[in-house]
């Protein structure tokens, strides 16, 4: 308990220090938001496993470590070849690069973009696009007592901003690359995507760690989709082995809009993603998916809430995990159908492939339904590779290990194959194969 208090106090002291230095100087509308978020964080502190939302994820190691915000963009030069290697998309993609959570202009190439579309660092957007940012920043995420969203709001000063005016569409995906280079650093990128009516875009958040020591990324993404807008959101998480990665994604959808999210998790020591999708207008569509391939002592926690507040929306969730070593996966999927949200069609699936006896899975798919003319289903399954399938492949002459890798790949490909953007699919497929190869090599060595 004492540790929790001191860590909380350390963050509070950090806030005071930054404010004294003028580092948190912000537009007048943001100051009260910062203050109230900090007050909520101060009152609540870090959650423990006694909190229902955190019963399977123990934050003690995160709380026990001291992390400090990076002072400006570190002098670490990222070699063009490194950047090239870390890029998901082609060279022509608009790209913002963040080093230790701070925007790095010299590594970024925010163009070319269609006329009217704004892509910039959040700090810049606060001055140039004040109105749009003021209307949406910190107005969506953290609705459900989320201490990490509060922490982000209190310290918000850097991140990415994308604004798509009505009827604009960015054909090329937009890549946001977050590189962590320094141990002990606290990175709090804040992403705001505002999509006007009938606009379209694809956004990729790519997290990479160049150090295997401990550092802490607390990312918050707010997505606002206007009527008829269509947004595809990808998160590729390849943090370093010692990383703590906490992500909050909140998507607010207006009528007839569509939102898809795909989160692929490979790295990090402790991962928690809190994703909320809220339908604010009729006939919205949401497709949420996640793939996590983890081993060792990695911990992956997905908390997904889909809030059907209005009628005639449909949502799909598909989360699949491959667990090896002593990895642990937590899935908490919550579908809420509010009174009068008739004609809701919601589906939720969570599957885990358990490859080693040391793994642990805690799955909690929940339905809370207050309307009767609805179609809601959920399913969860935890199991291993079917011995019949392995036998079949072996009878065809494949080695045992090859057969297992092939079947595991098949399990994971259900997510990969759905990705519409070819370079993202190819990148993910490559990462997945490399990961499974590495896992196999480790097994064969031991």
């Amino acid at each position, binding site marked *: 308990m004492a540790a929790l208090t001191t860590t909380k106090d350390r963050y509070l002291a950090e806030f005071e220090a930054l404010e004294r230095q003028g580092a948190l100087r912000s537009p007048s509308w943001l100051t009260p938001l910062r203050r109230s978020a900090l007050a909520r964080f101060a009152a609540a502190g870090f959650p423990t496993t006694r909190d229902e939302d955190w019963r399977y994820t123990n934050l003690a190691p995160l709380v026990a470590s001291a992390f400090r915000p990076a002072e400006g963009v570190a002098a670490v030069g990222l070699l063009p070849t490194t950047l090239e290697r870390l890029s998901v998309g082609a060279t022509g993609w608009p790209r913002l690069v963040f080093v230790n959570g701070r925007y790095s202009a010299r590594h970024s190439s925010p163009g070319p973009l269609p006329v009217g579309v704004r892509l910039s660092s959040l700090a810049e957007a606060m001055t140039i696009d004040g109105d749009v940012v003021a209307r949406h920043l910190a107005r969506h995420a953290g609705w459900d007592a989320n201490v990490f969203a509060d922490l982000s709001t209190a310290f918000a000063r850097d991140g990415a901003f994308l604004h798509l005016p009505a009827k604009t569409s960015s054909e090329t995906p937009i890549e946001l690359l977050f590189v962590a280079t320094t141990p002990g650093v606290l990175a709090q990128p804040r992403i705001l995507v505002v999509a006007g009516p009938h606009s379209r875009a694809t956004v990729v958040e790519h997290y990479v760690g160049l150090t295997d020591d401990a550092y802490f990324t607390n990312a918050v993404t707010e997505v606002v989709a206007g009527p008829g807008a269509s947004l595809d959101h990808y998160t590729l998480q390849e943090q370093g082995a010692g990383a703590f990665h906490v992500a909050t994604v909140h998507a607010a959808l207006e009528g007839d809009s569509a939102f898809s999210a795909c989160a692929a998790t490979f790295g990090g020591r402790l991962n928690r993603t809190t994703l909320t999708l809220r339908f604010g207008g009729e006939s919205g569509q949401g497709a949420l998916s996640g793939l996590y391939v983890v081993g060792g002592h990695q911990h992956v926690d997905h908390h997904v809430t889909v809030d059907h507040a209005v009628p005639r929306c449909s949502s799909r969730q598909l989360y699949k995990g491959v667990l090896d070593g002593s990895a642990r996966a937590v899935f908490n999927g919550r579908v809420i159908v509010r009174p009068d949200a008739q004609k809701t069609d919601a589906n939720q699936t969570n599957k885990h492939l358990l490859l080693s006896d040391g*793994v642990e899975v805690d*799955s909690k798919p929940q339905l809370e339904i207050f309307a*009767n003319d609805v179609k809601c289903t959920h*399913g*969860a399954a935890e199991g*291993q590779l079917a011995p019949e399938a392995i036998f079949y492949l072996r009878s065809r002459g494949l080695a045992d290990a090859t057969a297992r890798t092939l079947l595991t790949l098949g399990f994971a490909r259900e997510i990969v194959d759905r990705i519409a953007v070819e370079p993202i699919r190819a990148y993910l497929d490559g990462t997945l194969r490399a990961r499974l190869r590495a896992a196999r090599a480790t097994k064969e060595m031991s």
Partner: protein
Amino acid sequence: MPTTMSTTAKTLESLANREYKWGFVSDIEADTLQPGLDEDVIRLISAKKQEPEFMLEWRLRAYRHWVNMERTAGAPKWANVKHPPIDYQQIVYYSAPKRASEGPASLDQVDPRLLETFEKLGIPLAEQKRLAGVAVDAVFDSVSVATTFKEKLAELGIIFCSFSEAVRSHPDLVQKYLGSVVPYTDNFYATLNSAVFSDGSFCYIPKGVRCPMELSTYFRINTAGSGQFERTLIVAEEGSYVSYLEGCTAPRRDENQLHAAVVELIAQEGAQIKYSTVQNWYAGDAEGRGGIFNFVTKRGKCAGRGARISWTQVETGSAITWKYPSVILQGDDSVGEFYSVALTANRQQADTGTKMIHIGTNTRSTIISKGISAGRGNNTYRGLVKILPRAHHARNYTQCDSLLLGDRCGAHTFPYIEVGNASSVAEHEASTSKISDEQLFYCKQRGLSGDNAVSMIINGFCKEVFKNLPMEFAVEATKLLGVSLEGSIG
């Protein structure tokens, strides 16, 4: 389709207006304590029941623990139910029908009005013995009134008696098993029960004996403001078998009554216990006034290899149902089953489900839960499947379906699945739907009335559970659902 609409509307209306058929009060002289709870009350309960010292000690330990719980955390708040706080000092903790100092030697000596009550309940007793072939240990406001078929069972070495009697005549068995599955520290309501339980049933099946008939208890709360705290303990020795039926009703009253029971089952190697419940406590009126708070702890332990425990429940009554019949699968190859139908109409709330704790290897569990919500009812399935790391090759299958019969009701599913090794398989499926217009249309074009169609579809929805009930109970359960849907079925 306007006709369908009207049928559904009518069904809903009848659900909302359904009357409680069992809402009569028996005017029987009762030996009742003043409301309130302290150590003296517990000593008095224990003294009235002429209990041995160990029993009183156990009750007092439970009471002291409960006082501490009430002072600190209080009653559990995690359940998806809402009710005003319960004043535990306003409850009557002991109420027994007054009778001569010696208990009745036979049914003839029992107060005829009491027998009349049982007649009204339609439970098989006395002359219905032969017909139903059921031995009944009827618990009427806490004290067992009549135990039938006892001699017949005694020949096989089966002990089936009231809990009070078991405490007096078989203290060694009670002392050995009481609290071995649900310790007195288990949870707020179980602890309260451990301190104040008044009576209940005790059942012991010796090694290798197959109980030749279904054993049955009928619970009924009669005295106003009295809580019912019964305690059931069933021990099935190696290779034995028993099927146990439990049914519950209560008169209608405007205030809420607390019912906090504890049921413990122990199945040794190769033994099988089948426990069936039809719960029809008074559910309160359409505005949610009155009704029973049914806060029950039920748990079985498959202690030996290949043991099998199966819970089947049909929950149609109570203002609030809070119960999670669970199985601890300790023995290798043991099997746990849970089959449930829960209906909430008017303003009823149910938060019910099960826990399957897999400890032994090759343990298997099946969970089938059917929730029906109507009116402003709220129905929650809450279940835990926990497979411990050393429970290799464990297997679970869970299916929970909800049917919504109105646009003001709610259906909620909160499954917890915890798997701790890689050789086990856990599967969970759930769906929520309403009776579709297509289904109704199909039935109607085959000549069924709308009401019959609704009834048929609901019975079909519950079939997987009903088929696990003993025949008499299956009939009663179907009837109970029928009462709930009265007006739409003839």
